[in-house]
Structures are given as structure tokens and as C-alpha cells.
């Protein structure tokens, strides 16, 4: 009798349970979407509002329009007078950081991992140490050092700072990824008479392409996220990056929040596009190294 009962009850119970789990998952998914999008929705709503709409207490503007974007694009506000120039600065910092990080990181991990430089472990340790020092704790002495080097108000100061903090991660990922490339390739090239530079250029770099893309994206995003070093090193309107210009809006109490959010959205778009373009590579890069246990 019990068997018959089990047969009668089990499928029903199983189905309800599965439906309940599915519903709970849907609910969780919904919560996650709302949680992730709320501040971004907020940004968009304010950017689409007129100045008066912001203070109207609504959750969707009365008459949404793109006026604030127009003001940003035409540099029509005094915090934004050099907007395009500053946007160029941000790009310069991002690209230079990316190129230098990739170059220095791949060279260093090539000698340590492939050429087996004696005492190479010192270099790896130095990189690991830099990776785990919080950048903001080093900001004040770093600023002094830049004054000594005479680099304040030069974009290169920021490039140097971010490259310094991005390269250790690059070395870490490259040396992990490099282990998947067989040493025999290097050895056979060596027998064919290639010198280390040729091995680096024609064997190592092409095979490292996925890791290069991941780390390059990482460096670019890091540069785009960085505020403190930008703020400390760059103070004239011509040397500023968008991050510093954006934070200037917070200096006054009656800032035009719609313009600020429009600027913020324009600033956020390039990294978002780059991230979603290279999402798969990023995932591969993260899996390969970073904090892999």
C-alpha cells in the first residue's frame, strides 16, 4: 500500500517542489536585476531630466529630453569647457597604461617564465608585493616623488602610477598563462637559430593573445576607474582627465545634477562597450589567474 501511495504522491510533490524552486530563482533573478540596475537607472533618469524635473520628486521625468547631453557635447557649461580635450586625456591615459602594462608585464614574465633568469623569483615577489599594497596608501609619498621627478600636471604621472599598479597583475596572469605554452616551441626555435627577442615577438606574444586581451582590458578599466591619482597629480583644466572634471561638480552645492549625470554616462560608455566586447576573454583571463586558488 505504501508503495502505491508513494507512486501517487511523489510526482506531484516533485513537480511542486521544482516549481517552487524555479519561482524562487525567478524572484532572486528579479531582485538581482533591480539591485544592479537601480543606480544606473537613476543616472539615466537624471541625465534625461531638465534642471527643474530633478527636484520634482518623480521617478520618471515629466518631459525627458537629451538637452543635457547636448550641453555636454558642445561644452556649454563652465566645468565642461574643455570636455573633449579632457576626454582625449582620459583616452591617452587609458591607452598608454594599457600598452605599457602589456609591454612591461609580458617582457618581465617572459624572462622569468621562459628564459629562467637567475633570481627571477625576486622579480615575481616584488610584483606580488606591489599587487597587495593598497594604492591609496601610497598616494601621498607618490605625489611627493612625482614633484621630485617634475611630472605633476603631466598625464605621464598618472600613466606611471596606474602602470605601476597594473603591471603586477599582468605579470601574475602572464606567468600563469605562459605555463600552458609548451617550452619545446622555444627550444626548437632556439635550435633554428632564433634569438630571445625573436622568440618573444614571434612565438610568445602570438600564443599569449588571449591573456594579452584580458590584461589589456583590465588595465584600461583600471585606468578608467582611477580617481585619486588623477585628482592629486592633475589640477589644471588642460591636464585634467574626465574623472577629475566630473568630481568638480561636487565642489558646489547647487551643481546641475543633470549635466553631471550626462557627463557621467558619456564617461561610463567606453569602458562598458569595451568590457562587453571582450567579456569572454576577460572571463578566460580571470579564470587563468588573478586569485585562482
Amino acid at each position, binding site marked *: 500500500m505504501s508503495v502505491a501511495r508513494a507512486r501517487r504522491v511523489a510526482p506531484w510533490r516533485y513537480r511542486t517542489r521544482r516549481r517552487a524552486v524555479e519561482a524562487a530563482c525567478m524572484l532572486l533573478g528579479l531582485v538581482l536585476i533591480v539591485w544592479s540596475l537601480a*543606480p544606473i537607472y537613476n543616472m539615466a533618469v537624471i541625465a534625461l531630466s531638465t534642471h527643474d524635473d*530633478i527636484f520634482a520628486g518623480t521617478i520618471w521625468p515629466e518631459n525627458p529630453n537629451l538637452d543635457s547631453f547636448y550641453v555636454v557635447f558642445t561644452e556649454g557649461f563652465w566645468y565642461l569647457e574643455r570636455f573633449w580635450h579632457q576626454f582625449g586625456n582620459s583616452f591617452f591615459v587609458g591607452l598608454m597604461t594599457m600598452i605599457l602594462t602589456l609591454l612591461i608585464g609580458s617582457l618581465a614574465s617572459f624572462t622569468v617564465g621562459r628564459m629562467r633568469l637567475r633570481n627571477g623569483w625576486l622579480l615575481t615577489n*616584488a610584483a606580488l608585493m606591489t599587487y597587495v599594497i*593598497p594604492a591609496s596608501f601610497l598616494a601621498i*609619498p607618490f605625489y611627493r616623488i612625482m614633484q621630485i621627478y617634475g611630472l605633476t600636471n603631466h598625464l605621464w604621472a598618472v600613466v606611471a602610477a596606474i602602470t605601476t599598479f597594473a603591471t603586477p597583475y599582468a605579470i601574475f596572469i602572464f606567468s600563469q598563462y605562459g605555463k600552458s605554452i609548451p617550452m619545446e616551441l622555444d627550444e626548437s626555435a632556439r635550435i633554428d637559430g632564433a634569438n*630571445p627577442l625573436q622568440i618573444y615577438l614571434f612565438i610568445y606574444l602570438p600564443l599569449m593573445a588571449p591573456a594579452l586581451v584580458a590584461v589589456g582590458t583590465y588595465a584600461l578599466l583600471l585606468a578608467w576607474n582611477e580617481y*585619486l591619482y588623477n585628482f592629486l597629480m592633475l589640477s589644471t583644466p588642460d591636464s585634467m582627465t574626465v574623472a577629475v572634471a566630473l568630481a568638480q561638480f561636487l565642489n558646489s552645492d547647487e551643481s546641475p545634477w543633470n549635466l553631471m549625470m550626462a557627463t557621467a554616462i558619456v564617461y561610463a560608455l567606453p569602458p562598458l562597450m569595451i568590457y562587453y566586447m571582450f567579456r569572454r576573454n576577460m572571463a578566460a583571463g580571470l579564470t587563468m589567474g588573478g*586569485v585562482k*586558488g
Partner: protein
Amino acid sequence: MSITQQALPVGRRLTTVAIRRRARRGGLYGSDRIWAVAFALPYVLIFFAFVLYPVVYGLWMGSDPTLYRQLFDDPRYLTAVINTLLYVGIGVNVKMALAFLLSGFFMRKGWWIKAVLVIFILPWATPALPAYMSIHWFLNGQWGMLNNLLYLLTGIDGPVYLNSHWMGLGANIGAYIWKNLPFWTLILLSGRMAIPQELYEAAAVDGANGLHRLTHVTLPLMANLYIVCVLLDTVFALGDFNATYFVSGGGPAMSTEVLATLGIRYAYTVSLPRLGVAEVMTALPVLIPLIFILMRKLRMSEQQL
């Protein structure tokens, strides 16, 4: 991949390390040596010019004992220390626990789970500055979206969140979690995906239910990764400047400052750079052991790969 290797052979690892060490001892000769040194040179230069020099310079700046007396006499410093402890303690652990649970959620099959994941990553891909500024305005007591919604739904006037010490601190922590949760979820997700499915099948054959599989398969295999993540994020959270600076701005009346922001405040608002450095240096007793443990753990994981 690494996790299975970690769980299984111990003996094999020793031999590969020995071989590697022998190969290393062989060293390089002639022009190869020059090439190798030349390739290493850019990073060595960067390290000396932009890491070692500032570190030593900082140690020198903060070497005056009177600075520390001045620091400990400042009540804002004590507040900042407590805030930092709460910020790091809650921010890191809550985030990691959530990331662990969510990584399990994202292991589920189905197209809409993938779609949720794409949206879920958005906070991490958004640059910090715009995101935190938006959260700052979102929480504004009079015109912020949150209180507008609250009023529309319930008719209650919400509190002025950023005018209170505890809610301000909570907002900073929440913003930090919001921004970084996707990243750690992805890391733990990739850790989970590296666990071979056969282990779960074997456990299921042995009669393990869901809970058993979690405690006897997933947790032991993920433990090391989880600990590395927690330690790494502790260091990141300790040095996090943006969330506090842009969400609460350190207010009201500098009551939500953390060590990272108060140091900068000392150096550039009050023009006491040495005090700022000294303030950051007081974190060293916590930071240095943390860095040592982390370096050990990261090096170990590198060898095992």
C-alpha cells in the same frame, strides 16, 4: 583544473618543483643573459622608481613619533579606525558570502540565468566614479530616487540617509558591495565550474543529498580559493577610497571617514601630509601580516597550477 590538482597529488608537486629548481640553477650564458636582463629591466626600473622609492619616502615621512601623539589625540582618527574595521569586516565578509551563494545560483542552467548574469555584471563594468555619484544622489533625502519611491509606494517620508553616521557608513558599505559583488561572484563561479562533475555524481551515487554535496564536495574544494579571495579583498577594501569619498563624502562632520580617505584629508585639506602618512602607517601592523599570508598563498597557487 587547479582545484583538482590541488586536492589530489602532493608527491608529484614536490618532484616538479625539484626539477624546476634544477633547471633554474643551470642559469643562462652569454648573450642570452644580456637579453634576459634587458627584458627584466623595464619592470625593475618601475619597481625601484615608483614602488620602492615612494615606500621608503613614506616611511621616512612618517618616522617622527610626535606625529603619532598628534594622531591619537585626534578623535576623528579613532572614529576612522572603527569605521574602517566595520567597513572591511562587514563589506568583505557579507560580499564574499553573497558571492559564494550567488555563484551557486549562476551555476543553474537556462537562458534567463545567463541574461541575469549579463545584467548583474553591469555594476562592475561601470566606472567607479559615475556609479558612486549616482548612488550618492539616489540616497539624497529630499530628491533622491529611493525616497521618491518610498513616498510613492507607502506615503512615508524616508530618512535623510547620508546625514546619519550609521546610515552613511551603511551606504558606503552597500555601495562598495554593489560595485564589487559581480567581480567576486565571477571568480567564485569559475572556481565552482572547475570542480569536476564526476565528484558530484559519485557523491550522489553514494547517497549524498544536496546539503551533503555542499559540505563535503563544494566547500572543501572551494575553501582555499575562498580564503584567498577574502584576504585579497580585505586588502582592497582597506585601501578603498572611492566609495567613501563619493557616496557619503566622509560626512556628516567627517564621521564616516575611513583610513584611506582621512589620510588624504589630512594631507590635502588640512595640509599635513606627514600626519596623513603617519595615519596610513598605523594600518601597517595589520597590513604587513596580511600581505605576507597573501603572498604565500598566491605563490602556492602559482606553483600548483
